[in-house]
């Protein structure tokens, strides 16, 4: 069995092409920043991964909600939720890594205790916890229900991350230490490259989720086929008419 279809292959090729364009443009075509120099090029990876992680977590939440409501498709939606969260955690990790590398180049340290960074870390750990609870081996329906609730609560943290800077400033008298929004001034090509990056990462995200989800579906199907075999075997165990006790 394979998890690929023509559609996903086309998707994959598109993702590759656009990624190639982004890499070329990011490294060779776009100008270096006046203040930050070449390090600004990290932005083309950093910002899209953050946004795709958001997208992944929102997808997880939506799929979880559907999994709770649509009782007869619970497991299908739950698989999507799980796959999307896995990919989201991956992208969030990339955000953290690219961010701290960027920080190392611009601030001289890997990390600043700025509200956005801190809340990002919380978001990351929340979904690591979500994955941890999915790992606990229980009946799939029950797991779906439980993890759906957690996913729906966890997604509330995204606005917190996004607005943390504003929220913090309005409530907190100390100005935040460093403005992460950066003093980067984006020209048209930079903007175009940035959004190409977003498109490329979105395609990669979709591609990963589709495959991951199909893999899970296949093992579920295998389980169900196995179940039929097992049910037959189980019936054969019975000693009809004979003493079970």
């Amino acid at each position, binding site marked *: 069995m394979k998890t690929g279809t023509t559609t996903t292959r086309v998707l994959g090729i598109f993702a590759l092409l656009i990624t190639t364009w982004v890499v070329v443009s990011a490294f060779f075509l776009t100008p270096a920043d006046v203040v930050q120099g070449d390090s600004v090029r990290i932005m083309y990876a950093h910002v899209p991964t953050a946004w795709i992680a958001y997208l992944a977590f929102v997808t997880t939440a939506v799929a979880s909600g559907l999994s*709770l409501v649509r009782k007869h498709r619970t497991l299908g939606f739950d698989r999507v939720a799980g796959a999307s969260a896995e990919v989201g955690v991956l992208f969030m990790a990339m955000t953290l890594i690219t961010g701290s590398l960027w920080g190392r180049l611009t601030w001289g340290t890997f990390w600043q205790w700025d509200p956005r960074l801190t*809340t990002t870390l*919380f*978001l990351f*750990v*929340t979904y*690591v*916890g*979500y994955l*941890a*609870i999915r790992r*606990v081996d*229980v*009946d799939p329906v*029950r797991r779906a*229900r*439980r993890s*759906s*609730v*957690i996913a*729906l*609560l*966890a997604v*509330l*943290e995204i606005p*917190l991350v996004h607005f943390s800077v504003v929220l913090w400033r*309005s*409530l*907190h*008298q*100390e100005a935040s230490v460093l403005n992460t929004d950066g003093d980067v001034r984006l020209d048209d090509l930079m903007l175009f490259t940035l959004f190409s990056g977003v498109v490329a990462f979105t395609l990669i995200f979709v591609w990963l989720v589709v495959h991951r989800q199909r893999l899970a579906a296949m093992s579920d199907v295998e389980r169900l086929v196995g179940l039929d075999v097992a049910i037959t075997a189980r019936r054969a165990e019975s000693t009809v008419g004979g003493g079970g006790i």
Partner: protein
Amino acid sequence: MNAILAIARKDLRIEWRTRTLLARVIPFALLVLVLFAVALDSEPLLLRAAAGLVWLAMLFAAMLLVQRSFDVETADHALDSLMSFVSSPSKVFFGKALSMFVQLFALAVVLLGAAVVLYGARVDGDSVVLLVTVLITATIGLSVVGTLYGVVVANMSGRDSLLPLLALPVLAPLLIGAARATEAALGSDTIDLANGWAWVALLVSYAVVFGSAGAVAFAPLAQSDS
């Protein structure tokens, strides 16, 4: 309503009989405050961080209380039957959250007192209202989130390690809000009273969101695995 009270009363009776809060959790929380002092090893630092550390100690202690509250239910699989006695699962949620609130509030008062003694925090007359409001709203938020995640992990093996992992990130905003508001009430120079009330508003909405989420989500969660 009756069921909610009966459940809360049952929890508090068990608490009273085993003295978990009094003999263990309160000393533990005080110990954590002392350990913070040991780890930081500097007095002006401590005074500056007092409010945050008090609430951090509250969070850790709350984890213990939540664990205890659900250990009692799952040790002999009582939760399964408990759910079958009430007309709506949300009653179990509110009953357990209520007893949790009572215990956590007592704990919060003690810890704040300890911060005054240990870290030299100061409470002024005019900010007492703010302080009490913060204590109540933050403790409500802590109780509902604790109860909610307590039931999430209730029937899982190794729940001791899962609970803090799941609950603490969600409680982080509460930690920040409660710490800043308490700082304001304690008369810090970095944050004033008005700002403190703004944080209280945040705490209130936090409690409302998770309170309603808990009431709704409790039923699908409270099912045992094996």
